[in-house]
């Protein structure tokens, strides 16, 4: 016959509100949940003293002892455990035995109670402060590097140039082409209704050169470059390589950030040009299929675009590059410890870059508007 899993708990309350629980049977991983529920229900009504009669418990495993310990923790001195058999007491001791490897018993300092809002505000304040300090350092170090070109890490600069520029070219060209084709195609029908299809060239050309080109380039670089800088530098941080630099007396900003930032700032306008060109090619292809030959296309483009549109876009792209690379490097340098830290920095790098791109774009829109560009 199969041995039955017998477990029963009886709860008994006397006049003064003292509760006596009598448990009989096996108190183990399988039976504890039910007992736990039953006892909790019994304990809902106010109770002064809890007595657990353990005389009839014939087996108890870690779950059982955990249950007993939890009761004790909850009721502290008002909890009595009665008649636990000696063998079970021994078992309990054995399970409690720990290897003492001299783990540190470091003192916990009392934290000043801060409400979440306060923590949040302090956090934001610190973040803003950090960002401003970092930008200041970057600006200062960039100036120093430009003054003393010998001091620049040319090898890192070259590697960053290659990484940011040529390697990003395929995706830039692809996106540009797509955007040129799609926006031309989408405006073909509505413009056609007014017989104004020729002005699609103005629309797409101007849009690409002034706004879409720099913006799309920047967004692509935020996903590609800012994240890779943050991950790269973050890994170095975790690996204590940044510490090693500092103790050698080398500035991580000068050493790691400046070459990358300068390279990105230089490359972004160039990538922007490629994106615009491929966008215009995409536009030209669709326009051709609408019956406008390349001569008309170029002529119309020539009428539509002015040099200052192009310069405005290029300047913007330069600043986008500056911002993206700075944020990527800063997030990398600010990486905390732990296995998820690099991932977090990378995500933050992309998100902050995107936000900053929007802000910078807004600022430029305002400046160009007031300057009449």
């Amino acid at each position, binding site marked *: 016959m199969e041995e039955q899993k017998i477990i029963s708990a009886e709860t008994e309350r006397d006049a003064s509100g003292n509760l006596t629980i009598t448990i009989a049977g096996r108190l183990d991983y399988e039976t504890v949940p039910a007992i736990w529920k039953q006892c909790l229900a019994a304990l809902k009504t106010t109770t002064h003293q809890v007595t657990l009669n353990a005389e009839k418990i014939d087996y108890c495993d870690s779950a059982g002892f955990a249950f007993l310990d939890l009761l004790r923790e909850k009721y502290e001195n008002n909890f009595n455990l009665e008649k636990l058999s000696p063998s079970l007491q021994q078992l309990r001791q054995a399970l409690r035995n720990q290897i003492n490897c001299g783990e*540190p018993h*470091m003192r*916990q300092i009392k934290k000043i109670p801060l409400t979440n809002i306060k923590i949040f505000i302090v956090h934001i304040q610190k973040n803003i402060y950090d960002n401003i300090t970092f930008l200041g350092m970057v600006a200062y170090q960039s100036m120093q590097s430009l003054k003393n070109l010998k001091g620049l890490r040319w090898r890192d600069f070259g590697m960053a140039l290659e990484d940011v520029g040529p390697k990003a070219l395929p995706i830039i060209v692809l996106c540009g082409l797509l955007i040129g084709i799609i926006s031309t195609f989408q405006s073909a029908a509505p413009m056609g209704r007014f017989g104004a299809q020729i002005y699609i060239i103005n629309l797409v050309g101007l849009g690409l050169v002034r706004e879409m080109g720099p913006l799309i380039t920047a967004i692509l670089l935020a996903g590609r470059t800012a994240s890779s800088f943050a991950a790269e530098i973050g*890994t170095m941080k975790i690996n*204590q390589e940044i510490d*090693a630099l500092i103790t*050698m007396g*080398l500035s991580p900003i000068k050493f790691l950030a400046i070459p990358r930032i300068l390279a990105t700032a230089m490359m972004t306008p160039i990538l922007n040009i490629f994106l615009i060109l491929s966008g215009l090619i995409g536009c030209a292809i669709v326009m051709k299929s609408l019956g406008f030959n390349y001569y008309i296309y170029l002529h119309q483009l020539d009428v539509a675009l002015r040099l200052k549109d192009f310069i405005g876009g290029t300047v913007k792209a330069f600043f986008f590059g500056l911002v993206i690379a700075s944020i990527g490097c800063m997030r990398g340098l600010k990486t905390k410890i732990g296995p998820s830290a690099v991932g977090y920095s990378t995500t933050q790098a992309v998100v902050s870059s995107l936000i900053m791109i929007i802000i910078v774009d807004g600022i430029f829109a305002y400046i160009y508007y007031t300057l009449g560009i």
Partner: protein
Amino acid sequence: MPIDAIIRVQHLSAQYDDLLVLHDISFDVSPGEIFMVVGGSGIGKTTLLNHMIGLLHPSAGHVFIAGDDIITANDIERTRILKKIGVMYQNGALFGSMNLLENVALPLEELTKLPPQAIQRIARSKLEMVGLSDFCDYMPAEISGGMRKRAAIARAMVLDPKILFLDEPSSGLDPITSAQLDLLIQNLSKMLGITFFIVSHDLSSINAIADRVIMLHEGKIIASGKPETLRQDCDSVLVRKFFKREA
């Protein structure tokens, strides 16, 4: 301050957020001494070292390196102080994107105006010193953990600092290499008068080379002295156990 202490730590307290790791620690290290710090895992040895080299800011106290307070120093002063020391981190912290020779040569390239040939020669000789001359063009990821440690020591030594800080130099090394490393440290200390501040668990190397040992426990120094003395007649059971390798 007297000249007889090249490193002087005074009333140093250190904490991470709400965890007090070091509490009011003071000690002196004399020039040319091999000074070792021992203590259980996670007790704050690396933390102590990081505070002594100015990477972390203590909540209280001072650290004097060759007479200059590294805690209150400004950036320029700190750079000057840091030139006097070399540091080997617990995990080596070699630059992953450079090969060993470039790693070792980096401080020379950046901080001196030596011609490239001289830099190469010095870097090579340091790698030879730690037995890695055949691995100059290996990347850190391509060599073993023990080799990485030795390369990191070579890099720490490359500017001939007066003081070397080593965080667990012999962990992960086989006994023979470890003994060779001990010999190297002893020679450097004897012949060049380099002061060593070493964090270590390795009893045999502690016994072999340490001039003086301090043991950290619960944020305090619970024992200090020569290793033999601590093993034989320290009042604290914990210390005796540690030095006799008992459970």
